[in-house]
């Protein structure tokens, strides 16, 4: 962790780190708008923060070095009043109530017009606004305007104890509740100098993989719904229901709420419950495989998926894509690699044979990762689980960093504390990282394909908006 340095040195350090293979993992304003911190992560899972002092209300932009920082800098401007030298134009992201010209990219030429969709959508979907710039049916550009669900959770968490702050991270999003909670708990434990134990690591890994299992089943159903294949949607929805019932049987809650705590785990699974869970997981695995085969041989369905919403490998890296969407484009990025506080061992992500980053690749990526999660769960549940506490022994510090892989990608949490109180909480979720990638993937596709492209990412609005 470095002290706030000069603008030039800050940019040089980040540029050098990116050259050495570190990746951008988040940026936030802190200390009441006095500093900006950039989080970097290396392929082995190590993290580091680079801090720069804000002078005259302006910090140096790094958006030319790491395109993924674009949303972070726009958010820091809107919520903390920080200007970014070199980020031109710095369009509003969180601020609404502005003229259309302020937040849309000008699209000129012969006959382009705009299609406005949302914030309320036609199905049971979260709220957010999409402004498509189109010629005929062809999308030239998409401005995604989210933050309709902005509840100010990070700021509301400030001043609470580290324990009480957990609720703000957990409730940011139900679909990523465990990931956000684990990332938060890791960040607090990092700041408090607490170290994990094998049993604690196992409890949290079980919870993370249970969350991934239901979510991947849900995402497969969502793509079926995206093209109107009701049978596929219904089959995988039923499997999602089975997975959520298993969650309730193991933890008392269908979304696993309340199972993560800072500094320990109270989750207890006895031998009989673990055995029943393994049987249920095996049943889900078998049924999902059989239903997946049915989808593979449905030609009219499969014809809709290839070459739509393409994100090439270079673009995925450049834009900072994470999670299944990045892996489907051939980027082996996964926060489970080298996750020292979790029980993943020498985990390696699975990559598709045809990692071309289209809707089909992202769809197949879920089906590839699902059995991996179910296998992992079966081996983690081979014995009873007991409550466990983290152990003191590490070094206490003011700022802690935690990471976990959500079903949508790597999630980073930075906790800055003032004694036992939260001074600053920043949660950067997989969805947040991937939303700009959705907008990129939509361009040069047909407007009627957008729901399908969007479903192939299946991002949360709630954990981007917070």
């Amino acid at each position, binding site marked *: 962790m470095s002290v706030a340095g000069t603008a030039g040195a800050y940019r040089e350090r980040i540029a050098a780190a990116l050259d050495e293979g570190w990746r951008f993992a988040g940026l936030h304003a802190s200390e009441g708008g006095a500093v900006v911190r950039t989080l970097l992560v290396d392929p082995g899972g190590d993290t580091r923060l680079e801090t720069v002092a804000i002078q005259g209300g302006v910090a140096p932009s790094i958006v030319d070095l790491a395109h993924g920082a674009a949303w972070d800098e726009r958010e820091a401007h809107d919520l903390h009043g920080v200007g970014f030298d070199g980020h031109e134009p710095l369009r509003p992201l969180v601020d609404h109530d502005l003229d259309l010209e302020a937040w849309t990219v000008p699209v000129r030429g012969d006959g382009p017009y705009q299609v406005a969709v949302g914030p309320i959508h036609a199905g*049971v979907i979260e*709220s957010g606004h999409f402004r498509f710039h189109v010629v005929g049916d062809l999308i030239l550009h998409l401005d995604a305007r989210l933050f309709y669900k902005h509840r100010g959770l990070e*700021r509301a968490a400030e001043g609470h104890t580290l324990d009480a702050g957990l609720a703000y991270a957990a409730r940011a999003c139900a679909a990523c509740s465990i990931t956000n909670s684990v990332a938060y708990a890791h960040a607090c434990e990092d700041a408090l100098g607490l170290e994990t134990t094998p049993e604690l690591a196992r409890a949290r890994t079980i919870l993370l993989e249970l969350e991934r299992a239901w979510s991947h089943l849900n995402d497969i159903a969502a793509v079926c719904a995206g093209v109107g294949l009701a049978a596929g949607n219904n089959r995988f929805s039923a499997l999602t229901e089975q997975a959520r019932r298993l969650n309730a049987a193991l933890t008392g809650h269908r979304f696993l709420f309340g199972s993560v705590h800072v500094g320990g785990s109270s989750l207890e699974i006895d031998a009989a419950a673990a055995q029943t869970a393994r049987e249920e997981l095996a049943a889900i695995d078998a049924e999902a495989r059989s239903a997946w085969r*049915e989808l593979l041989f449905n030609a009219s369905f499969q014809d809709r998926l290839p070459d739509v919403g393409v994100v090439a490998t270079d673009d995925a890296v450049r834009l900072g894509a994470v999670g299944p969407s990045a892996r489907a484009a051939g980027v082996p990025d996964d926060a489970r690699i080298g996750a020292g506080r979790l029980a993943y061992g020498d985990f390696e992500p699975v990559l598709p044979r045809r990692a071309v980053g289209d809707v089909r690749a992202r769809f197949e990526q879920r089906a590839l990762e699902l059995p991996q999660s179910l296998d992992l769960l079966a081996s983690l549940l081979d014995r009873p689980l007991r409550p466990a506490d983290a152990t003191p022994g590490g070094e206490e510090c003011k700022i802690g960093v935690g990471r976990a892989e959500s079903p949508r990608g790597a999630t980073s949490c930075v906790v800055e504390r003032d004694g036992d109180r939260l001074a600053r909480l920043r949660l950067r979720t997989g969805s947040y990282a991937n939303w700009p990638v959705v907008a990129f993937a939509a361009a040069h596709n047909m407007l009627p394909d957008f729901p399908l492209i969007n479903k192939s990412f299946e991002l949360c609005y709630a954990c981007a908006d917070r």
Partner: protein
Amino acid sequence: MLTLLRDLRLLRRQIALSAPDRGRSLALRHVDAGSCNGCEHELTLATNPYYDLQRFGLGVVASPRHADVLLVTGAVTTRMREPLLIAYHAMPEPRRVAALGDCALGCGLLGRQEELVGPVETILPVDARIPGCPPTPETIAKLLLQLIDGAAMG
């Protein structure tokens, strides 16, 4: 494809809720006014083969113009206040409002005061309350059926 359809038929026979013939229907329009996405996920599952709300005459429609009931989830954020009111005023009368989930009911809200309007009933008349964080698909199905039977109508 045939296997898939056979499996679904089997599932429905084995596990679906029993469906007495009500002979009536309600069209639902959902508006997310600032939820954590939990209520949406459970509402979506209420239409799967385990609960299959459509068999009871309950369907989610695309436009408030076609809706009898506005199903509102989430702590109403200041940014969703206006779209929510527009959706409500676009509905034909008689219209009903159901607050879905603890946030919409104002229980245990998290967030900054400046960003939240408060529970749904601060800006709209609420006719049905569906508690839970989030309510299970079963609770959603049961309370919506009460609504269709008139039991929960104000």
